[in-house]
């Protein structure tokens, strides 16, 4: 078997404007775990060796480089590790289907406020939240990874559009900050 070279959608692109950094990040394998009716216990058992469990709605957990993110009713993404054999769930590899953008800096929240119809201020969206919401017209999963840091997961086919939206909003926020009233 020839070794195929995996390429990310944006070639690891990054930029920094007005103290906000936007960068494509590599997160490793992404596996969707959709719990089948009656499968809750079996899935919990299968995830136990990783020290993880199915997350509550709107949240994610991390343990030793592995991350599990709530992505819907009875559904989560396991990220950063290969998925162990799981009974009681429909398991699908999603690794090539997503692009992850990291947005950080004190004004990152202001950038997202221009695009996302959900309150992402720290009080309403503390670290550990994972929200399914929209970035303009794109569906996205937004993770609050730090007080001033987010990761935004979008469909890989939307990577350049997402980059364009976030880049434009970042420039606008920086320009607005520069205007003296």
């Amino acid at each position: 078997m020839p070794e195929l070279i995996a390429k990310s959608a944006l070639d690891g692109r990054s930029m920094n404007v007005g103290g906000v950094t936007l960068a494509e990040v590599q997160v490793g394998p992404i596996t969707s775990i959709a719990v089948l009716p009656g499968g809750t216990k079996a899935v919990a058992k299968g995830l136990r060796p990783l020290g993880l469990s199915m997350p509550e709605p709107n949240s994610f957990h991390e343990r030793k480089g592995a991350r599990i993110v709530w992505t819907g009713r009875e559904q989560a993404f396991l990220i950063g590790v290969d998925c162990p054999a799981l009974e009681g769930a429909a398991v699908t590899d999603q690794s090539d289907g997503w692009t992850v953008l990291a947005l950080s800096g004190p004004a990152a929240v202001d950038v997202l406020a221009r695009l996302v119809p959900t309150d992402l201020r720290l009080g309403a969206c503390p670290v550990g939240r994972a929200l399914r919401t929209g970035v303009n017209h794109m569906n996205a999963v937004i993770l609050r990874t730090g007080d001033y840091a987010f990761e935004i997961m979008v469909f890989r086919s939307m990577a350049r559009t997402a980059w364009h939206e976030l880049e434009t909003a970042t420039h606008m926020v920086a320009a607005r900050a520069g205007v003296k009233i």
Partner: protein
Amino acid sequence: MRLTCPLCGERDRREFYYYGAEDYLHRPGEGASLAEWDSYLHLRDNVAGVVRDLWYHEAGCAQWLVVTRNTVTHEISGVELVAERAK
């Protein structure tokens, strides 16, 4: 307008898609009469008051919801998951 999704919490109307009356959940069974199909597909009350409608959390958790809403006061008094409603 905001809807409180049972899973996602309070969200802006932009995240939702409106489908129509809850009646769409009550599809006639096999062998139903033409009158029943006519009613299911076409006949709706135009209520000034409490209605129950189907909404889809399109830019959220992708669940279908039954929303109870008052067309006079605009009050939203209930949002339930279709997937978890009592059959």
